């Protein structure tokens, strides 16, 4: 590992830390615009929550002091305070419970999207301009243009309500099938297109021609040379894919009634539960920033040709 790469990694990590700090700060001060401030909201909250918040953040103290206490609690203890609407519960506990379900949902969707996307993309590239390629491209174009909530609702109507193949409620057994498919379709379509174009690019390279001229067998060229090299751009999509899955899961969990973090986030928005909104925003944003960081670093490590700026 050379010093330039090391310096890049350090710089990238610093930017990520700064971003997380910015998220916390923005979240805190934006919610100050709420009448009464984020810790009280505009509606009545439980006595216990008021007392706990009063003691913790010193609601009569200046804003900066409240901010520093909040920042310190979040960074050192992952403590976001009590929920304003769900009595006697801390925000971090609610998030923890929801995150378990959501991670299962999101990771399954991501894995499915990756595998099927790469397979379809490779098929499309190898059968370029043939019928299969055209069908794949038309379908992926349609998927890319469809918002996740519409895709989810349509799948719900078709498979759960009309055909009754799977349960409509995400909390039941097998109920995660449709949410996973809904979340996976867009990234799958995107990865398919990405793999296709990068594979076409790789297949035109000189070393492929050399391998072919040497008499290397077809499958060996495809799997050993072409596919391996065309997967590099896919790595850059890891971060955006996670961001998509996180925001997508907000509505998908709502549609299919999956008891995950996205659903509790959405209900906290309608309930105006500001400590919950702040906590969830910070946790999800940190998740996205970290994934972006990992995918960026991985990209640089995997492909040494990429210039470091």
């Amino acid at each position, binding site marked *: 590992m050379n010093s330039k790469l090391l310096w890049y990694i350090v710089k990238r990590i610093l*930017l*990520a830390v*700064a*971003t997380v700090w*910015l*998220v916390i700060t*923005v*979240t805190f001060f*934006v*919610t100050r*615009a*709420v*009448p009464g401030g984020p810790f009280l909201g*505009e509606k009545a909250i439980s006595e216990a929550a008021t007392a706990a918040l009063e003691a913790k953040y010193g609601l009569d103290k200046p804003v900066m002091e409240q901010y520093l206490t909040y920042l310190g609690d979040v960074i050192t203890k992952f403590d976001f305070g009590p929920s304003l609407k769900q009595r006697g519960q801390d925000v971090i506990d609610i998030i923890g419970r929801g995150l378990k379900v959501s991670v299962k949902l999101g990771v399954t969707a991501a894995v499915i999207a990756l595998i099927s996307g790469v397979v379809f993309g490779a098929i499309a590239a190898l059968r370029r301009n043939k019928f299969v390629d055209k069908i794949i491209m038309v379908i992926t*174009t*349609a998927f*890319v*243009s*469809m*918002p996740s*909530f*519409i895709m989810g*609702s*349509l799948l*719900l*109507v078709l498979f759960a*309500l*009309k055909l009754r193949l799977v349960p409509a409620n995400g909390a039941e057994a097998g109920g995660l099938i449709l949410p996973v498919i809904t979340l996976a379709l867009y990234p799958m379509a995107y990865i398919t297109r990405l793999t296709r174009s990068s594979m076409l690019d790789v297949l035109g390279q000189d070393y492929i021609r050399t391998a072919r001229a040497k008499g290397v067998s077809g499958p060996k060229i495809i799997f050993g040379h072409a596919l391996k090299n065309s997967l590099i751009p896919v790595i850059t999509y890891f971060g955006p894919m996670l*961001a998509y899955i*996180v*925001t997508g899961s*907000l*509505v998908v969990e*709502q*549609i299919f009634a999956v008891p995950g973090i996205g659903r509790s986030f*959405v209900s906290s*928005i*309608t309930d*105006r539960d500001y400590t919950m*909104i702040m906590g969830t*925003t910070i946790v*999800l*944003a940190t998740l*996205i*920033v970290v994934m*972006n960081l990992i995918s960026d670093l991985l990209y640089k490590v995997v492909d040494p040709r990429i210039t470091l700026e």
Partner: protein
Amino acid sequence: MTKKPFSQHVDLDMFIPATDAEKEYMVQMRPSSTFFKDGVKRLLKNKVATVCFFIIVLITLAAIFIPMFWPYSYDQMLGITPGRPVDPSYNNLGAFEYGSTEQERIDAGEKVFPHIFGTDSSGRDYFIRVVYGTRISLAVGFFASIIVLIIGMTVGSIAGYCGGKVDLIIMRIVDMIYSLPDMLMVILLAAVLQVSGLDKAIEGTVLEKIGANIISLFIVFALLYWVSMSRLIRGQILSLREQEYVLAARATGAKGSWIVRKHLIPNSISVVIISTALQIPNAIFTESYLSFLGLGVNAPMPSLGSLASDALNGLTSYPMRLVIPAIVISLIVLSLNLFGDGLRDAFDPKLNS
């Protein structure tokens, strides 16, 4: 004059003045064409993009003009007549069905305008709600992109032209906003702006008609989405300002603002227009997403996202109420995306191979 083989003498035949026929041959076969004409020609050759363009124009015209002559309005509950109890027969009508009083009028020989998509659970004509929702979604997409364009263009050209410390500071800010998870920030801002008293601040002004929620949507777009546009413009300007004609302009004493307006912006305009066109479906996407979460337009005003969201409640009995806005929104986003792609292929000279 006969020419001797191997002679070094010049062949005089080659120096006879050209005849008219020969001159005719050298004239350009077609009139010269401008960059714009060339682009339009390439665009028209792209069948997919042309079809998409007509779909967009058709939907836009429909969204603008249909509400002008349609006998129902988007917030009119047909079952409610002043001084009488609510007539529930108007709620949840199927396509081409009529409420009880309308049925009486039809029986009496009157003509009643049909409810093409039926009515919703409050007895509002669903067709006009979809048309209105389309209007809102298109308007939000269009104006949000314009806002993004203006802010991005201003900041980007300042950063690109000034360079040095100004550029460094602006680009660090851009980097940070860029690395923020945009959708989460959008949700947060929209959730907070809704209750921040914006509706009182705009009371009595022209803005009140638009509604506080849509304005907060615009604010959100203005705050977050200008960064990629400003990056793009900065990149354009950085490469353009090294060109000789900028040096020439500066040598003849042109001021900075003049160079930006007369040389840099016109030369980067095609890239800018293309990315603005591609921004519109993005904005429509975001608006429908926020409306779906209940953070979009104020009720009773519909948008395609809020229509889809409302339809979720009665999904089992009335799936068409979801399917219709779903189809419209997908059609709009798909055609805008494909048209934008066509526009890029036709107008971006750097991509022409």
